[in-house]
């Protein structure tokens, strides 16, 4: 079942197109990453899904209900951009007061449980003005999770978190997703997105330009390490089937993700490698290639001396 669906969703401010003709579909229980450079329309899209911004075109559905659907927000958790709370309230009181805006909890300890999930139990009775940015992020995450929602929208949830907190966040998201909750998150922490997300969409200038599993968006190569004396023979064998380039004095990089095929080709030719390794280029490279200047410009920038 689709928990998030957009058809031709768009938002314009005068002549400026913030989101244009967005088509998106997120299945239940998925962790879906929403990537894009600053100003690409990710936050605007999330705000439209939550009813904070009125779309100028298209339609959207959350949990199968057409938007706008104020009542449907009872089953949706959200954290949009930098979470903000009244500084004079404690963390616990902030969640209790915000909970009054929605329907009553089924469980009396829902707030305490949410604070425990994000590791804020010990700081729950301190005023929010004493919190660090990372603690405010975690409080925002607790707010998003406290109703045990069926879908959670998280916008830049890892901002300000230290590595330990990010690891905890990753575990929390995984745990939430495993319980059947759909997680729709945007982030610039691409290594984390690669680890957490089942699918990702890359957005730029208000449109989705690529969508799929993280593996589908990244490229793989096979690195072959062998004796320098064998390198010429290996290159001849492999170049008949794959693009090959030499690297260092003892390595070849093969333009293929199939390590088995490379190993078989070398074996039949009587060349034995010290090491054959499949390497993925990483989501960051794919993201920059999709959203930045052309790939050549990116490589030229990387190669030019600083």
């Amino acid at each position, binding site marked *: 079942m689709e928990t998030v669906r957009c058809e031709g969703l768009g938002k314009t401010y005068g002549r400026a197109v913030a989101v244009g003709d967005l088509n998106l579909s997120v299945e239940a229980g998925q962790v879906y990453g929403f990537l894009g450079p600053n100003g690409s329309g990710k936050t605007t899209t999330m705000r439209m899904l939550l009813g*904070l911004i009125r779309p100028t075109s298209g339609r959207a559905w959350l949990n199968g209900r057409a938007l706008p659907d104020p009542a449907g927000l009872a089953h949706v958790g959200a954290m*949009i951009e930098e979470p903000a709370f009244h500084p004079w309230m404690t963390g616990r009181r902030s969640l209790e007061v*915000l909970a009054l*805006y929605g329907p009553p909890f089924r469980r009396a300890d829902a707030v305490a449980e949410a604070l425990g999930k994000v590791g804020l139990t010990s700081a729950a009775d301190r005023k929010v003005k004493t919190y660090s940015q990372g603690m405010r992020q975690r409080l925002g995450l607790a707010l998003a999770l406290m109703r045990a929602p069926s879908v959670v929208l998280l916008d830049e949830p890892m901002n300000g978190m230290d590595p330990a907190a990010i690891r905890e966040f990753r575990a929390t998201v995984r745990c939430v997703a495993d319980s059947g909750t759909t997680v729709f998150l945007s982030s610039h922490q691409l290594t984390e997105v690669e680890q957490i997300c089942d699918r990702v969409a890359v957005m730029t200038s208000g449109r989705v330009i690529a969508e799929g599993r993280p593996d589908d968006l990244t490229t793989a190569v096979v690195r072959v390490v062998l004796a320098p004396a064998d390198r010429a023979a290996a290159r001849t064998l492999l170049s008949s089937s794959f693009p090959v380039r030499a690297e260092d004095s003892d390595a070849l990089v093969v333009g293929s993700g199939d390590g088995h095929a490379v190993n078989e080709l070398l074996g039949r030719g009587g060349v034995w490698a010290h090491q054959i390794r499949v390497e993925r280029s990483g989501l960051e490279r794919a993201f920059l290639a999709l959203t930045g200047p052309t790939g050549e410009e990116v490589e030229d920038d990387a190669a030019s001396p600083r």
Partner: protein
Amino acid sequence: MRHLRAELATLNRPLTWAVMTAAALFCVLLAIGGADNARRAVDDTGGGRSPSCAVMRLPAGPACAQALAIQKRRIEEEHAAGTRAAARTAAQLDPIAAGAEAAGLMASLPGALAVSLLAGGHIGGEWSGRTLKNVLTQNGRRLRVVAAKLVSLWIAGVGLVCACWTCLAVAGPVIRAADHLPDPHQPTHHAVTWAGTQFGRSLVVLAAFAAIGLLAGVVTRGTIGTMAASAAIVLAMLIAATLPALGRWTPATWVQGWMGFAGGQESIGSLPDNFWSRFIDTGGTAPGHAMGLAGVTGLLVTCAVAAFVVFRRLDVTG
């Protein structure tokens, strides 16, 4: 009700307590000054002796006797007026009747400015503090959110009246005794009626002030903007009331009519019971209670509806 509880919990903040304290302090200081004014009015006219014929540059005789009689009568009238004013001030400082004083002050300029401050923090602050998105993602029913904001702000305004009344009820008898003001011989039921009537009337005026603050908040979307816009609207109402011919048909005169404030200089006494109608031109008859109520209610409804219409269509980008 849950929304209202949430909004009232949000109003439990330093700004609210500071504004309440300031309002109560203002009322008490005004009472101290007013009682002192009243005492001086009695003292300045009480011990005066009639001047002599030589001072009046009249020869002794019938003409001087007549002039002395006129002077004596004038001094007696001034003393009586001073004593009546002092008694009225003493009546205003009665613990029960102090409710009328508190209601009058809060249903006029001081209260309007206090509600503007509260609106700035409570409504405009949701945008400045970027907390509105938290509220709307918990419940997207914007009518309920805006209604809860209006009602909670109104309750805060009523709280101002109660705080001022409480402080005046405690301080009033002390001030009265310290300035040796004459006993007003005011029946209790009169004080109850007076205070109850003015308190009840102030509820509608405070609701109108809250609606003005709500509209200002929704339009300006910021703490400072809300405070400034609310205050500016109230001042504009008072200025509009001074315009010839138009004065009777402005919100300020409707407030005056509903609350029953005396117009122009008549509203200025030892202890003013409002800071509103002194600015209003008294040419022509002031609107009565009925028209005043209709006008104030119309102002309240217009501002509340306008605020909801704007808020419903607003994109929340903060």
